[in-house]
């Protein structure tokens, strides 16, 4: 949202993902998305708590914090997890995060420094021995978590070899993948296209005009309690609605995680279709080819 690049400076950063409360329960599920938490001295002179998606490079969360209002604490009911919650004394707002550094050794150190800054933005950061190589009072992203765009105040030190002892092969592989994506600018998995740019009224309306017979195939998928009769007009209204648009945007985001294998099977698609937007659209193309060649041979205008 805000541009923190110019006269703002990173105070500290560490690798952390977000976690979300599961609807209808007290569970907090860590999201696999790679991210980083950064405390930034914004050009507005205020302290910002930023969560950056390390895959897309997008700052998806940017919270302005006021001295003594927020604290960053471990979720006590999950002592063995590395889930932390950012909470405020002035509101019920809660933001959950989980530590993504391979080693938990420095979790407490980061947390102590975060809380120091949350209490007093002029707090002098204290780093332990483990990070002696890169520690400084001005800023230290001594893991590889600093986002690619991090300014020079961060120390470009990779996950220090010492703190990785004991990491599982999976964890190491993950770190390598992170480093790999960062060396190419972090854009390797930037999406090539978005479903929201395909499912537009501009694309769908001419489809209805050219193929009116397809309209009724959509009727079973409309809300069951729609207060108007199913019609092309109703579908036009739905596809232009903020509710449908945000649904598509959510689904698009979910597909980008590549983890929707189970979900897409309910659409009659192979699990592979849940691994990304391109595979999803390819699978739909195949599905169309199969259905057309079976039911309406003449209508099969395109096969891959």
């Amino acid at each position, binding site marked *: 949202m805000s541009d923190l690049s110019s006269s703002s400076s990173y105070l500290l950063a560490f690798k952390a*993902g977000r976690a979300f*409360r599961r*609807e*209808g329960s007290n569970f907090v*599920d860590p*999201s*696999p998305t790679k*991210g980083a938490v950064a405390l930034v001295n914004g050009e507005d002179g205020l302290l910002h708590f930023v969560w950056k998606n390390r895959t897309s490079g997008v700052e998806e*969360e940017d919270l*302005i*914090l006021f001295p003594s*209002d*927020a604290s960053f604490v471990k979720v006590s*009911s999950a002592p063995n997890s590395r889930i932390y*919650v950012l909470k*405020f*004394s*002035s*509101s*019920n*707002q*809660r933001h959950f995060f989980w530590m993504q550094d391979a080693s938990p050794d420095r979790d407490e150190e980061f947390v102590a420094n975060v809380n120091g800054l949350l209490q007093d933005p002029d707090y002098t950061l204290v780093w332990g021995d483990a990070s002696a190589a890169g520690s400084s009072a001005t800023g230290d992203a001594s893991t590889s978590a600093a986002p690619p765009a991090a300014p020079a105040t961060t120390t470009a030190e990779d996950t220090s070899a010492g703190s990785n002892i004991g990491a599982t092969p999976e964890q190491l592989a993950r770190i390598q993948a992170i480093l790999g994506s960062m060396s190419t600018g972090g854009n390797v998995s930037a999406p090539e*296209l*978005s*479903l929201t*740019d*395909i499912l537009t009224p501009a*694309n*769908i309306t001419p*489809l209805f005009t050219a*193929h009116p017979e*397809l309209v009724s*195939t*959509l009727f079973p*998928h*409309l*809300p*069951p*309690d*729609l207060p*108007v009769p199913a019609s092309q007009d109703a579908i036009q209204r*739905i596809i232009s*609605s903020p*509710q*449908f648009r945000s*649904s*598509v945007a*959510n689904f698009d*985001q*979910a597909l980008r995680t590549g983890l929707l294998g189970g979900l897409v099977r309910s*659409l009659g698609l192979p699990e592979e279709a849940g691994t990304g937007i391109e595979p999803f*659209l390819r699978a*739909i193309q195949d*599905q*169309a*080819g199969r*259905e057309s060649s079976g039911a309406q041979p003449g*209508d099969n*205008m*395109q096969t891959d």
Partner: protein
Amino acid sequence: MSGADDSSGWQLTESDPGVFTELLKRLGVPYIVDDLYSLDPESLASLQPLHALIFLFKWLPNTSSDANSLPAGQYDPDFPGFFAHQVVNNACATLAVLNALGNIPDLSCGPQLAELNSFTTGMDPQTRGLVITSADWLREAHNALSPPSAISLDGLGLPRTTEDAYHFVVYLPAMGSIYELDGLKEHPIKHGAHDTSGEGWVKQAREVIEARISTYPVGALEFSLLALRDDPLPILQTQLADLQASGQQAEAAELVVKLANETSKRDRWAFENSLRRHNHMGLAHAILLAMAKAGKLEGAKTDAKNIMKNSEEAGAR
């Protein structure tokens, strides 16, 4: 996590008049909520009888981090009316509505709400908040218009833009004064006596709200105002019947237009609410499949890639 730390099953809902009105319906209250686009006397007069104004703003930490330095008014710890603290996340909209409804004399409502109101009488705000948010039926009414979780996207790390914390503050007349009820504040805030003639309480309420808005730097706040008012439909229908019976055709025609506007607003709300309850993934898939069958998918993909490329080049993202 403790119960006070989380949403306890309360889901996010949109802050839309159609959503509020559906909630009121489920509570058995014959009111509706309308957007308020202006605080000028004419706009407010056209919505009478008005029961409360709900001031809704994008929560910024600085706006209430210093809870003790109130912009105006004073805490009233002895407020004898209904006031509950917001103790779980996501319940703020419903809590604001309950804080308003609880202070309306002779409220006509369903048995469950009446029972809840009488059961919580005399409780302190915190306990009251806890009792309210542990009422299953109320949570179900609240959740009825949140998107279905069937898509089970939880845990995938999706950005939840709706989690932007909107905060709800109720302004209403009680015991001769304007009160501000904010579930995140310790006590109700009293803003002094209001007029009983002329424009009535909304005059002082307007002044208080306008003063509050003016304390925020320009652009620092996203806000909107909602009005809790009598459902105008039955009133309009009665008036129309009277006018027609007495042969006042011109006045009747005017009312017919008003009625048509109200009815089309209800139709729109009903339509949008049905979309809110629905999981659109199946529709999205069916449309993509239809596009593929018509040979239009590949072209649309190419276009979408160009859009993405151009927006990246333009630095739009």
